[in-house]
């Protein structure tokens, strides 16, 4: 029933199921924002209503005064941006080699890339920590970047796209005087732009939100990222000051959510097509 009706776009009743579900799904976010606009007493008062009595904006400056969110933001941008740029370079080069060149050990090497996708980061983070520590890189921004420079997933995704470019097009490029690098730059890259954007969005979301690794390798505010800052704020408040914490959460969550709202189609498409080959 469910399926038939939905296919035929006849199921007005579907809204009766989906609307409450959607509201339920939205409620944590609504709660975050509402709480950040309440007073402390309101939060703990069971008699107080769902909505704040008066909109209190002071929680925001209060949050910003207890923790250097500006620095965190800059660090988050620097880290995520560097990872993205490095990844785009490495995966483009590697994916082109796998898609368009013939060489020995190709399958073996490709296997190494694919296997990386399967490896849990939790089976390497100890040894990576030890290595970075030996190199004196703990508590630096590069430490936040280097483990993520090579991406098996991105290489795989982009290789698929490169392979879909008709071979006649690269033949034409060769006749037009392009070597491999020129073909990659002038012909292949412009054509895989959608894949690059999709990968970029997924990468940014992943690393912008990453918690575990920055938690391990940072120990001063000068290199901490937004999620770490938020975690620290939670610890400092130890659950007492929810209004300030929710203001902080709103601050941390909003950059990505704003991007998501503005570029909704792009975001949705990117994540949607991670599953379709």
């Amino acid at each position, binding site marked *: 029933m469910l399926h038939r009706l939905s296919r035929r776009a006849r199921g007005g009743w579907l809204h009766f199921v989906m609307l409450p579900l959607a509201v339920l799904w939205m409620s944590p976010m609504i709660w975050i924002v509402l709480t950040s606009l309440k007073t402390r007493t309101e939060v703990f008062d069971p008699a107080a209503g769902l909505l704040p009595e008066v909109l209190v904006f002071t929680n925001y400056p209060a949050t910003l005064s207890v923790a250097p969110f500006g620095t965190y933001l800059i660090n988050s941008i620097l880290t995520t941006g560097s990872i993205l740029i490095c990844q785009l370079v490495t995966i483009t080069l590697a994916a082109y080699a796998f898609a368009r060149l013939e060489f020995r050990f190709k399958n073996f090497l490709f296997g190494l890339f694919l296997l990386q996708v399967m490896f849990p980061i939790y089976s390497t983070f100890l040894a990576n920590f030890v290595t970075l520590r030996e190199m004196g890189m703990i508590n630096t921004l590069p430490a936040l970047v280097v483990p993520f420079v090579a991406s098996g997933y991105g290489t795989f995704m982009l290789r698929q796209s490169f392979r879909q470019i*008709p071979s*006649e097009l690269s*033949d*034409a490029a*060769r006749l*037009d*005087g392009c070597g491999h690098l020129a073909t990659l730059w002038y012909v292949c890259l*412009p054509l895989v732009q959608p894949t690059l954007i999709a990968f970029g969005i997924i990468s940014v979301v992943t690393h912008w939100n990453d918690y575990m690794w920055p938690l391990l390798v940072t120990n001063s505010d000068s290199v901490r990222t937004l999620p770490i800052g938020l975690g620290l704020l939670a610890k400092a408040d130890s659950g007492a000051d929810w209004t300030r914490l929710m203001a902080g959460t709103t601050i941390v969550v909003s950059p990505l959510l704003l991007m998501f709202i503005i570029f909704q189609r792009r975001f949705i498409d990117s994540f949607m097509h991670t599953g379709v080959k």
Partner: protein
Amino acid sequence: MATVNLSKINKSYAGRPTVHDIDLTIEDREFMVLVGPSGCGKSTTLRMIAGLEDITSGVLTIDGKDVTDALPQKRDIAMVFQSYALYPHMTAYKNMAFGLLRTSRLSKAEIDTRIREAAEILHITDLLDRRPKELSGGERQRVAIGRALVRKPKVFLFDEPLSNLDAKLRNRMRGELKRLHQELALTVIYVTHDQIEAMTLGTRVAMMSKGHLQQVGAPMDIYMHPSNTFVATFIGSPEMALIPCKTDAGGQIRHASFVSGLAMGEGLPAGVLFGIRPEEVRLGDEGMARGKVERTELIGAEALVEVSLGDDRLTVKSSVADAPSPGTDVGLTFDLSRARLFHAETGRAIAVGG
């Protein structure tokens, strides 16, 4: 001025030979068509000339210069692909300019002049700002040809360029290509599996099969004097009938349906194939052979009549008015001045004395 010379060209993939000892010279201003069924090696040969495939052995010269191992862009050639291979992210103008910018030292203004000239010839001046996606199949085709024209190469290579077009457009583009070849005095090597394209476009045709060159010659020459049964049946539609005959003691060839033996020449082998085209047979009450009409197809101006001669069949072209109805017994008269014989075992043409 450009002659292309292939001498003993071979190609193998992973040790498996696919093109064998091709010897072929394409003269200046010639329209050479490489024709054959798919998988016969014609595209591979073209791609070797273009430099897109390595030549396993043999020597390729263009204009006397050995280019066997030269990079594609050093060969002074341009190619039009089956799928057109236009860069989807560039406008028609950019598509045409791209190769010039990379391979020549022409100034922007000179490139612009060339593109405008070519666009004029191909009637695509209005389309220069469009991307391939905004163009129809025929328009893309013109842009692809334009991209080759602006290079002013010594040789034009075409790889089945019309096979993605619908029948009507294909006819028009065929005429167009012919016009371009004549007006601009181009040297063209053209690959197709379509024998009509080969016959109408080529100044000479090179037939290929299974990696071997079968016959090279002017279209009518190949049509009239095919060197073996493969060429004989590939060229011409409906195809030539090959009737297996025996040579009797008197040197005449006989078939169960023949009224009497036919004298076709001296020193014939015991088994021959009697090759006759649909338009080389006349139907009537009397004739050299007797057969039974199996089927009649009216195709407008004329009729195709399928006649069985015992176990063998042949197709006859006849006027619609004279077309007999199925089941009728008919007599067949062959135009013996045009009929040809092939060796039954080797399939090679036998020189017919008369």
